[in-house]
């Protein structure tokens, strides 16, 4: 069964006779539109299994990845409980190795990426560009099922003899070969990566095709919201990085079972080759995890500062340069192997600080002299700025080979990448989640519980990770299951564990918030934040195929222009190519 989708109806630019359209909390015409353009189709679990609607798939992605996030978070708490005291025996060494491997794998492969490009991007990107769905809806559904299959495959490692994979999320050769890591758990881990890798590649293809081909009339590339821009760049990065991971995984599997010697010295192979392949995927992966979240906070800052985004084009070019540079820096994870070109990778790594700095400048410039509303999405975005700044600055330190030689494989590195990733994939992710939740579910989350969630997470975050920098400088290696009492690491570890449990507890507030807002719904309306971008124009949740009407798209914030016609000239910072009253033949015709 297929549906032929007509273009949404146009709207007059003046929202005449709509007194509520000028103040904060202005509503789009979605409110006046019928509740749902009813979609003939199955409901309930059959709908979940068969839907090709990007909104259903996006929500499935988000729910699945949040469940995996909480599982991985529980693993982190067990790890911190084990490290709280010297000579601790909360779990066995083998279990500890499995836990930190699966914690990292779940967080990086199954939560942070899929939540962004499978969940929020899937839901929001077609809305932001005025598209009725993703370009390939059935491929989109297949992506989700591959992702779910891969997630279950990876978790099922805990059920097989020998336990789950226990070689760290990077699976370095030769630790990951059949001799050192026997058992089905490691194979399941590899196969899970193959499945989720393809899921990511399909989503990447889908996002690029959607953004290139399904934009609404007038939505030129340089009018797309920054979140959509960042998802385009992320999707291209996925297409660069994930095929390499898949190839590496296949090679490692052949080494384990089919007698090849690609990564083993005995057979003439090279263990370092695994690191080259893995990090050629792994470093772009870091930005695949970061760029979508940069995009989310870039949507939040202007709306809650009640200003247009400062430096729109600068943001776009900064995103592209971060992505381009990120593919040339993979071996800065391999400085201590002694076989990589230190100046090349060090220099390119330093260069990434420049576009990232531009982004920080623009975020602060957006808030500068704005009327800042400290709603929960804004708080999480500001929390992201602090967290990511600390993670980023220590990243610049680690890009210096002499410092990296000192701190490599210590808790300094652990603290660095946790601050980067919690900054992006937790703080910015929840900024995006709180921001778009009203759009997705048509109801508001409670501000008070959200603020409790934010502040407890923020405090826990610093208490947890700051001591880990010091532990690293005191020489505590990462991935050790226990340590001796005379090392002097106990106090800092206790502080860090307390911080971890505060972070864990903060999510109780999040659960309460979800339950309360579900049990006693506060209707959101189509545009509760007085948002700028197109998704706030349609009803919450949007109807099947998203739009019954579209406003004229004349800038990068069409919904704002429609709701605030008196401010429209202020925000169109580029003059149109021709004044609107002149004939159209003068513009952009092919020669």
């Amino acid at each position, binding site marked *: 069964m297929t549906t032929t989708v007509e*273009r949404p109806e146009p709207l007059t630019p003046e929202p005449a006779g709509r007194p509520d359209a000028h103040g904060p909390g202005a509503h789009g015409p979605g409110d006046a539109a019928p509740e749902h353009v009813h979609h003939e189709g199955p409901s309930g679990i059959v709908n979940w*299994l068969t839907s090709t609607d990007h909104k259903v798939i996006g929500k499935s992605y988000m729910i699945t990845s949040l469940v995996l996030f909480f599982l991985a978070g529980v693993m982190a708490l067990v790890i911190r409980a084990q490290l709280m005291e010297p000579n601790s025996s909360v779990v066995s060494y083998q279990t500890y190795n499995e836990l930190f491997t699966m914690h990292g794998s779940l967080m990086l492969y199954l939560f942070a990426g899929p939540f962004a490009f499978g969940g929020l991007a899937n839901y929001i990107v077609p809305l932001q560009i005025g598209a009725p769905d993703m370009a390939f*809806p059935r491929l989109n*559904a297949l992506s989700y*099922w*591959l992702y779910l299959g891969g997630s279950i495959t990876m978790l099922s490692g805990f059920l097989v003899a020998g336990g789950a994979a226990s070689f760290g999320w990077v699976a370095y050769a030769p630790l990951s070969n059949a001799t050192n890591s026997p058992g*089905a758990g490691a194979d399941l881990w590899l196969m899970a990566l193959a499945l989720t890798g393809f899921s990511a590649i399909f989503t990447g293809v889908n996002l690029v095709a959607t953004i290139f081909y399904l934009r609404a009339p007038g939505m030129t590339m340089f009018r797309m919201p920054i979140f959509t821009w960042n998802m385009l760049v992320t999707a291209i990065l996925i297409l660069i990085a994930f095929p390499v991971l898949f190839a590496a995984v296949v090679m490692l599997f052949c080494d384990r079972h089919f007698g090849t010697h690609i990564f083993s010295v005995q057979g003439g192979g090279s263990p370092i080759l695994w690191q080259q392949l893995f990090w050629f995927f792994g470093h772009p992966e870091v930005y695949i995890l970061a760029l979508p979240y940069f995009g989310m906070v870039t949507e939040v800052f202007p709306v809650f500062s009640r200003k247009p985004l400062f430096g729109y084009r600068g943001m776009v070019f900064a995103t592209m340069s971060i992505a381009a540079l990120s*593919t040339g820096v993979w071996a800065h994870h391999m400085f201590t192997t002694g076989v990589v070109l230190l100046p*090349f990778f060090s220099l390119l790594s330093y260069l990434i600080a420049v576009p990232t700095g531009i982004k920080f400048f623009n975020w602060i410039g957006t808030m500068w002299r704005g009327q800042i509303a400290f709603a929960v999405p804004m708080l999480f975005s500001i929390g992201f700025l602090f967290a990511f700044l600390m993670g980023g600055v220590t990243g610049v330190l680690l890009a210096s080979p002499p410092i990296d030689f000192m701190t490599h494989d210590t808790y300094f590195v652990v603290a660095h990448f946790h601050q980067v990733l919690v900054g992006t994939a937790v703080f910015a992710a929840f900024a995006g989640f709180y921001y778009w939740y009203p759009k997705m579910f048509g109801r508001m989350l409670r501000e008070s519980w959200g603020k409790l969630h934010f502040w407890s997470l923020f405090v826990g975050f610093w208490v947890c990770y700051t001591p880990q920098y010091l532990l690293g400088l005191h020489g505590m290696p990462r991935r050790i299951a226990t340590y001796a009492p005379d090392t002097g690491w106990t106090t800092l570890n206790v502080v860090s564990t307390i911080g971890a449990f505060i972070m864990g507890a903060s999510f109780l507030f999040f659960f309460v918030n979800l339950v309360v807002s579900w049990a006693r719904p506060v209707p959101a309306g189509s545009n509760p934040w007085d948002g700028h971008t197109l998704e706030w124009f349609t009803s919450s949740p949007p109807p099947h195929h998203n739009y019954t009407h579209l406003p004229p798209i004349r800038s990068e914030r069409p919904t704002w222009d429609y709701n605030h016609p008196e401010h429209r000239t202020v925000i169109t910072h580029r003059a149109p190519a021709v004044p609107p009253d002149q004939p159209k033949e003068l513009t*952009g015709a092919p020669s």
Partner: protein
Amino acid sequence: MKVEARILVVIGIFFGIIALVYWFTSYEDAGFLMLIGATGLGLFPGAYYLWWSHHMKPRLEDDPTATIEEGSGQIGTFPGSSIWPFIMGMGATATVLTFVFGLWLAPIAGALVLSALIGATVESRRGGTI
């Protein structure tokens, strides 16, 4: 279409330069080959888009003065609900599990994948879309 083409071409050119710099400073073949792969990833679709952007009328989404009215009509045909992506996903999962747990899973995996391929094709023909 011009902006899209330029993005991809610039990606290709950037990685081409980086690949050459990397090769002549390190002579390391794995990284060089992967960078060349990234160059191709930018240049091949980039060249395709560039060719099209010179041979097609500008689309409404590339025209800053286009109005919603001009775009009235059909956007396209979109598939409705379909069970085959789910069957295909489970088939793919069973296929990779065959490598872990043994060949006894292969008939199940094969049946799922085959039925999904046939089912999706038949569904597309009936609906007249891909």
